[in-house]
């Protein structure tokens, strides 16, 4: 099975936010929940770089580790998913996540923040693929239809890559070799405990 990963080539990312709205559109994500977002480092200065970030579907995911109810699971494609039926909205996954991926319907944590919501790698949740229940809770399941996450598919400059880790790593490597520069595979070291040697 493929090991699915995300890779944001910051030297291509122009902070156009297509990834953000594509995600909103595909899954009807409500206001206040940002499964994906774009952060700009050194904003306004020469050397500024923007990076599109969502759940990186970590190897040995911290969210899964700290979840008090074990609502996370990792699919055969190495996608980290969770069950909204089990989630109690405690916020621990958010505290542990290096990427700020978990989102909650409520800003407060009183009672419950509501069911945690995060990037599913367009792979739905524990319900049967593309059932109404899955759609309702997690949004569309593109992976089950043989499609990749829409954020990456719609990325305006093809900065955001999704797919098998080895393949996207080689695409990135090739790019860097061709153009002669690369600011790194943002988040890889933290998420996958590896970097792409250039």
């Amino acid at each position, binding site marked *: 099975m493929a090991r699915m990963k995300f890779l944001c080539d*910051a*030297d291509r990312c122009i902070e156009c936010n297509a990834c953000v709205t594509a995600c909103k559109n595909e899954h009807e994500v409500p206001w206040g929940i*940002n499964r994906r*977002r*774009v*952060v*700009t*480092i*050194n*904003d306004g*200065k*020469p*050397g*500024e*770089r*923007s*990076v599109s*970030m969502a759940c990186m579907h970590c190897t040995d995911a*911290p969210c899964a*580790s*700290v*979840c*008090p*109810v*074990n*609502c996370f699971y990792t699919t055969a494609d190495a996608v980290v998913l969770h069950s909204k*039926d*089990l*989630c*109690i*909205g*405690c*916020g*621990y996954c*958010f*505290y*542990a*996540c*290096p*990427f*700020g991926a978990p989102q909650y319907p409520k*800003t*407060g*944590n*009183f*009672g*419950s923040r509501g069911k945690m919501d995060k990037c599913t790698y367009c792979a739905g949740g524990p319900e049967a693929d593309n059932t109404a229940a899955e759609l309702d809770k997690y949004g569309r399941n593109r992976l089950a239809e043989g499609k990749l996450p829409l954020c990456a598919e719609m990325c305006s400059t093809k900065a955001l890559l999704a797919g098998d880790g080895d393949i996207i790593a080689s695409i990135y490597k090739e790019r860097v070799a061709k153009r002669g*520069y690369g*600011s*790194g*595979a*943002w*988040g890889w*070291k*933290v998420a996958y405990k590896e*970097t792409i040697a250039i």
Partner: protein
Amino acid sequence: MKTALSQFIRGGFAALLLAFIVTTMPAGAQQPSSVNPTAQSVKEDQLLRALKPGDQLTGRISIPDPKAASLIQPGRDWRSFNQETLPKLGTYAVLGMLLLLALFYMLRGKIRIDAGPSGQKILRFNSVERFAHWTTATSFIILAITGANITFGKTLLTPIMGPEAFAAWAQYAKYIHNYVGFAFMVGVLLVFLVWVKDNMPAMADLKWFAAGGGLLSKGHHPPAKRFNGGQKIVFWSVVIGGFLLSLSGWYLVFPYNTTLADVQWQATIHGVAAFVLIALMLAHAYIGSIGMEGAFDAMGSGEVDLNWAKEHHGLWVEEEMKKGTAHMHPAE
């Protein structure tokens, strides 16, 4: 919280900033004669290396949520704290204390009233005081159980209950924890208000500690006012621990523009304070019930046996007698 990145930016780019300020002066000013943003681009590697432990890479984002501006928080310290340190701490604290108490019980047995019950009762805690105590105590027990559930529940209960039922229970537990938290806060506040004046540290306390509180040997009672040194420790632990728990808990429940690092700190403080206090309260509960004859009455009916009072709080009984405010009456 100053992140390493912001320091890095401030330091590293100060020169550049200065250059810009100079350059953009309208006329005749000098701009750099070459700016290559591609070559100057930040690299993840450099930024990560420059980052201090626990800090995060942050940038700018237009969504009005400061947490969203954090790009990568590489440290997994909180995770390891939460998954390894805290459970260990909890286990050691709770089991260790239970073990210690069992040992103590075996060695010392129940501490009796040396002079035997006098038959006369003296009012030790009025109803307001008892209300404060029991509000705090009850809510603390509930909070301890529902809180420990977060740390130990999935290991201990999931195998028994199954994931769905456990999640349902955990959800309830979280609700209960959130609501009962307020009762606890009220309780701690009351405890503080009603007893603070009697809990100011005094020289007598040192003597009390020097004598080991008279717990280790029979028939020896260092003199104590209304509260002895040990009780003052409990009081201040409850007040300070309770305050820390309340504050950190409040922020966890009502996060206000806090960074992830702040939240992690709050969760850390909450966890540590909770288990430390649980351990202490186990000891407190022991000595207030099965560990000592006559002690429970203080919080039960509020009236204690005069002999018990003289032995454990001699100075207090003297004061009460002098004031003539002691309400004594024979036991029925």
